[in-house]
C-alpha cells in the first residue's frame, strides 16, 4: 500500500484497502468554520443525539468573516460560538483564532498519520504533515460529529516527482501552480496527490503546506508528503498527544507517476479565471494591478511574510495600488511584528490586517470593484472570487505579489532585487 492507503487502512480497522473501495473511517480531527459550521450544527440537531462523539476531536475556527463583517455573519458566528460552548469542543474565536489551516498545524492539533476531515475545501493542507486530510461538506461534518465516523472512497494516488533544485524566487507556490497548469483543474479529480523528489526534500514546511493546500485546485482529495526530519522538527514542540508515522510498502502502487525537472523553473502566475491558466512570470507582459494581497491559508505563514518583506524593504508600493498583508495567525502576527516586518510593510505603504480569510473569497477586507485587477498569494481566481464578477485575480507567490505591488504591474522579483 502507498501512504494514503496505509493511513486510511489504519483508520478503518482493515489490513488492506484498495482504490475505489468504500470504507468507514474514524477521523482524528473534525473541523468546521464560521461559514460551514452553522449548517453542520443545524443538521446535527436533526440526527437525534445530544452530544458530539468526542469534544476533544472537534474543532471550530471563526476565520472567514471575523471580526464579524456584518450583522448576518455575526449571527452565524454566534450560532457556532454557542454550540462550541454547549459542547465543550475546541473553539478559536477573535483573539485566539487564525486562518484555520495555518492555525491547526501551529497548535499541534493536527499531527502526522492523522485522518482529518474538514468542512473547508483547503483541509487538504495538513497533508504536509503526513496526515490524510480532506475537505467535505457541512452535512458530512454533522454526521461525523454525531457518530465519530465518516464514509470515504479510497482514492487512487498520483505520485509527483520534482527533480532538481529550486531557483531563488521559486517555492512551493510555484511548484503547485505549475503542477495544476500541467494537469488541469480536474487533473487529479478524486485522487490523492503525493509530492516527492529532491526539490520536495529541500522544501520548507511552509512551502509544503502551500503545495498540499492547493491539491484541491487540481480536483485532488488529498495532497500528501512523507514525514521526514523537517516534519518531525516541526511537530516536536507542538504535539501533546501520540502520533504515528506511516511509511509506504515497498510495492506501493500509483495510478500514475509524473516527473519534472524543476531546476530552471521560473516563478509561476495563474491568470484569470482558473488556477490552471499558468504561465512563467517572464511571459506576463504589461499587466497593471490595483491590489496586491499577501496572506491566506496558502501563503500567510511567517516565511511568506519574510519573503514579501525582503522585496518591499526600503521600497514604496506604487501609486493607486493597495497592498494588503494578512498574517495567518496571532502567533505569526506577533513573530512578524517582533522581526520588524510590519515596519517594512507600513513604511512601504502596505497595510497589515488581523488574520482572516476575508479577501480571498471576496468576503471583505479588500473587495475588488468591476474592472479592477489583483495579484494575490491566495488559491483561486474564479470569476468574481475576490469581488465584482468583472474583476480579475492573478495568483502568484509572495515575492511576485510584493514585487508587483512596487511596480504596479505583474513583475518578477528579479526586477526589484537586481
Amino acid at each position, binding site marked *: 500500500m502507498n501512504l494514503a492507503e496505509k493511513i486510511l487502512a489504519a483508520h478503518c480497522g482493515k489490513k488492506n484497502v484498495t482504490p475505489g473501495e468504500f470504507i468507514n473511517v474514524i477521523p482524528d480531527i473534525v473541523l468546521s468554520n464560521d461559514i460551514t459550521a452553522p449548517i453542520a450544527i443545524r*443538521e446535527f440537531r436533526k440526527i437525534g443525539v445530544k452530544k458530539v462523539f468526542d469534544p476533544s476531536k472537534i474543532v471550530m475556527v471563526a476565520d472567514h468573516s471575523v471580526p464579524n463583517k456584518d450583522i448576518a455573519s455575526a449571527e452565524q458566528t454566534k450560532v457556532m460560538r454557542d454550540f462550541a460552548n454547549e459542547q465543550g469542543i475546541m473553539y478559536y474565536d477573535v483573539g485566539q483564532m487564525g486562518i484555520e489551516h495555518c492555525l491547526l498545524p501551529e497548535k499541534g492539533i493536527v499531527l502526522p498519520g492523522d485522518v482529518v476531515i474538514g*468542512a473547508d475545501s483547503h483541509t487538504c493542507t495538513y497533508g504536509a504533515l503526513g496526515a490524510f486530510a480532506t475537505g467535505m461538506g457541512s*452535512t458530512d461534518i454533522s454526521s461525523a460529529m454525531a457518530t465519530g465516523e465518516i464514509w470515504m472512497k479510497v482514492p487512487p494516488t498520483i505520485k509527483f516527482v520534482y527533480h532538481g533544485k529550486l531557483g531563488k524566487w521559486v517555492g512551493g507556490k510555484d511548484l503547485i501552480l505549475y503542477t495544476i497548469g500541467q494537469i488541469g483543474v*480536474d487533473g487529479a479529480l478524486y485522487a490523492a496527490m503525493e509530492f516527492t523528489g529532491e526539490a520536495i526534500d529541500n522544501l520548507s514546511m511552509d512551502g509544503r503546506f502551500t503545495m498540499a493546500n492547493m491539491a484541491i485546485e487540481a*480536483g485532488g482529495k488529498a495532497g500528501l508528503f512523507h514525514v521526514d526530519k523537517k516534519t518531525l522538527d516541526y511537530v516536536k514542540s507542538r504535539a501533546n498527544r501520540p502520533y504515528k508515522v506511516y511509511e509506504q510498502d515497498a510495492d506501493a502502487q500509483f495510478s500514475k507517476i509524473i516527473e519534472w525537472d524543476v531546476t530552471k523553473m521560473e516563478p509561476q502566475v495563474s491568470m484569470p479565471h482558473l488556477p490552471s491558466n499558468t504561465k512563467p512570470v517572464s511571459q506576463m507582459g504589461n499587466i497593471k494591478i490595483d491590489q496586491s494581497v499577501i496572506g491566506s491559508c496558502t501563503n500567510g505563514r511567517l516565511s511568506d511574510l519574510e519573503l514579501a518583506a525582503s522585496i518591499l524593504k526600503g521600497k514604496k508600493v506604487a501609486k493607486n495600488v493597495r497592498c494588503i498583508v494578512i498574517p495567518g495567525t496571532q502567533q505569526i502576527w506577533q513573530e512578524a511584528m517582533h522581526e520588524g516586518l510590519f515596519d517594512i510593510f507600513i513604511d512601504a505603504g502596505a497595510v497589515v490586517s488581523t488574520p482572516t480569510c476575508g479577501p480571498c473569497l471576496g468576503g471583505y477586507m479588500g473587495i475588488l470593484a468591476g474592472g479592477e485587477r489583483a495579484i494575490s498569494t491566495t488559491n483561486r481566481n474564479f470569476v*468574481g472570487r475576490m469581488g465584482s464578477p468583472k474583476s480579475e485575480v492573478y495568483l502568484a507567490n509572495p515575492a511576485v505579489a510584493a514585487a508587483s505591488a512596487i511596480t504596479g504591474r505583474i513583475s518578477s522579483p528579479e526586477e526589484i532585487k537586481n
Partner: protein
Amino acid sequence: MLKGKVFKYGDNVDTDAIIPARYLNTSDPAELAKHTMEDIDLDFVKKVKPGDIIVATTNFGCGSSREHAPLAIKTSGISCVIAKSFARIFFRNAINIGLPLLESQEAVDGINAGDTVEGDLAKGTILNVTTGKKFTAKPYPPFMSTLIKAGGLIEYTKEKVKTK
C-alpha cells in the same frame, strides 16, 4: 420522475459561480436560492421553474466545500444536475442533501439548452424529450445507492445512531 427544461453550462462551473461568497453570511436555503448561478447567469433565477435541469460538461461544482452550492441549486427548483463529471466535494454534498446527480458524457453532448429532459434516478436513464434520444447514466456504487435510498446522509445517520 425528474422533468424540466435545460439550463446548459460549460466546464469547471465553480462554487463561486453557483453561489458567490458574498451571500454566505446566511445559511437560509431560500435566501441562498435567490442568488443561484448569479455571477455566470444573471437570468437563471428569473427563468428557472420547479423541475428544471442543469446540464454541464466536466468538473461541475469545483472549488469550495460550501454546501450552500447544492442547497441553492436544489432550493431554486432544479430537480437534477447532469454532467460529464462532478467535483468530488460537490458530489458528496449533493448526495448528502438529496440533490440528484446523473453522470453521462453522451447525454451532455446530446442535450441543448432549452431542451426538455427527463431523468430517472432509479433506472439511471436520461430521456431528451425534445429529440427523443435516450441515454444511460453511470451507475452509482452500491453504498451511494443506499445513501440515496435512505434520503441522504442525515436520514442514514439517524438510523445508524438508533441501532447503536
